[in-house]
């Protein structure tokens, strides 16, 4: 791979590692033999043209899809085939490319639900919902962090698009994950919101590992420690943002469009 640095020798095992991960949809190969290492404590961007397989890869990593072949290891343990809720409990949280919230619940109720998830409170059908109040303080902090404090009691269905994206991010954060998978956190946002989201992601990435999909090269350039370029389900190149940006194949396959 000329122009791309060889995979760095890193201390210890990577936080997340896929080997030869493949996903077929009725004969169509959306993810094609991806072997990827995500190092702990880094922000790792996945880029690639539409249909490259980024979201499908996220769905595999978060358990929403089962791979056709290949495996996924997290902290050195095989997690292939685990259900989404099990993966969430292991400390892997994801956001969705399509805003994915509970329309009839308020922002605070969303965050309380996320915070209550590991405690098992959700099963208590004989207790009052007021029990959720124990998570109120932390929920208020989280919602303030993403700039939605003034809308904390509005149901998600009535929020504007950018506000929903922000709540989506807060929701993933509420799980206090070790590994955060963000699928296009800035999709459809205005410039100001994009910059605020960049700051926010940088802030929450402290002490965490983040895998980020984004089409916005400004976002990728300012955040990513490492970039993997996907094309047609395969890894096309990998390296730092600067290295990948210079790679001829990447320019023709993907960035070329933007230059035109």
């Amino acid at each position, binding site marked *: 791979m000329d122009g791309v640095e060889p995979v760095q020798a890193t201390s210890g095992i990577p936080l997340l590692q896929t080997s030869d991960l493949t996903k077929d949809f009725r004969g169509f190969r959306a993810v094609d033999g991806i072997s990827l290492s995500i190092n702990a404590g880094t922000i790792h961007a996945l880029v690639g043209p539409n249909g490259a397989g980024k979201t499908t890869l996220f769905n595999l990593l978060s358990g929403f899809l089962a791979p056709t072949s290949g495996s996924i290891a997290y902290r050195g343990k095989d997690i292939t085939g685990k259900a989404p809720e099990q993966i*969430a409990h292991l400390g892997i949280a994801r956001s969705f490319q399509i805003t994915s919230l*509970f329309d009839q619940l308020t922002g605070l109720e969303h965050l309380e639900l996320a915070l209550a998830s590991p405690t098992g409170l*959700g*099963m208590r059908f004989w207790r009052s919902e007021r029990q959720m109040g124990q998570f109120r303080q932390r929920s208020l902090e989280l919602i303030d962090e993403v700039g939605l404090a003034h809308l904390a009691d509005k149901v998600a269905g009535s929020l504007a698009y950018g506000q929903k994206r922000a709540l989506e991010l807060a929701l993933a954060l509420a799980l206090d994950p070790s590994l955060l998978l963000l699928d296009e956190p800035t*999709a459809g946002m205005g410039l100001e919101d994009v910059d605020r989201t960049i700051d926010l992601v940088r802030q929450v990435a402290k002490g965490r590992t983040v895998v980020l999909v984004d089409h916005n*090269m400004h976002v990728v350039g300012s955040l990513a420690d490492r970039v993997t370029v996907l094309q047609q389900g395969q890894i096309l190149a990998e390296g730092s943002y600067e290295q990948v940006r210079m790679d001829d194949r990447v320019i023709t396959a993907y960035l070329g469009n*933007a230059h035109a």
Partner: protein
Amino acid sequence: MTQQIKGSSGIIEPDLARRVNLDTAEHDVINPDLTRSPGKGRRRSPLRWIMLAVGLVATLALPWLVYPPVAMDIAAWALFAISVDLLLGYTGLLSFGHAAFWGSSSYVTGLIAINWGVPFPLAILGGMLFAMAIAVPIGYLSVRRTGIYFAMVTLAFAQMVYFVANQLSGLTGGENGLQAIPRSFFGIESVETDSFTFYYAAIGLILLGTWAAWRIVHSPFGRVLVAIRDNPARARALGYDVDRYKIIVFVLSAGLAGLAGGVFAISHGFTSLQELEWTTSGKVVLITVLGGIGTLWGGPLGAAIVVTLEDWLTSSGFEGTGIILGSIFVLIVLLFRHGIWGTTQDLFQRRRKAD
């Protein structure tokens, strides 16, 4: 190179949304207007104490207003409808087989009362537990399906229960049903013989069941249910085992349906295969949707309307009850998309906003 590369917008998003739904098999096929319930039943209305008082007074006054056995029917169907609403309105699951729980409990309640002569609340408790017990495997096997598929699987299981009850005619009386179910109640004769007094002895069980439904809806569990209804994939990503929650609410709902079916059997003094028929499952869904889902008030309102109307039409010797009820149902669903209760609520809220 700071320019946004286009393409993450518009065109592909519906496609992705569809895929997420397909991948997790959570796609809902039921009319979204019916299932996308307002869910306002979980919000604390400022009028809730007044509504509660009116509801209680109406419940206690009912046997004065209508023939007491009809009053009891209304109460039983109201709780039955609430049990369906717990699934349909709060979890987004349309069960088309709830007669299995109502009907099987009516048989078990009847058999316990006939064979052991225990006070009727105990017999009903037995029926309710039986309904919950059969709901465990049925729920386990059906919650993996959603939308119309869930409805069909529950219907299939209910037909199996019907078939079994028909086969075990030695126990269930087959076509004849179970006759002469006694109403023992600690030797208090007026309860055992007089349907007016019986109403007040039995209504406590219905109110207890209604309270249980209210407690479930307003619990942390209830909030998870609404989350599952609104977006099951998201609930899973938050770490909630959606199938497990669905099985539990299914069993709880079956318990309430069983409680209602037991009261119904004791009130009538007999039970028959009709209580296990798919038409019974259909009728309770009709009552629930008519009243309005996702509010807990809709079921009782629907039950009051349908049972009264049915009683009135039958006693006037009219043959086509089904046609009339069917037409009313179609009209109401077309005119009031959130059912009677939901639409009234919408009107009030619009008025309040306008003020």
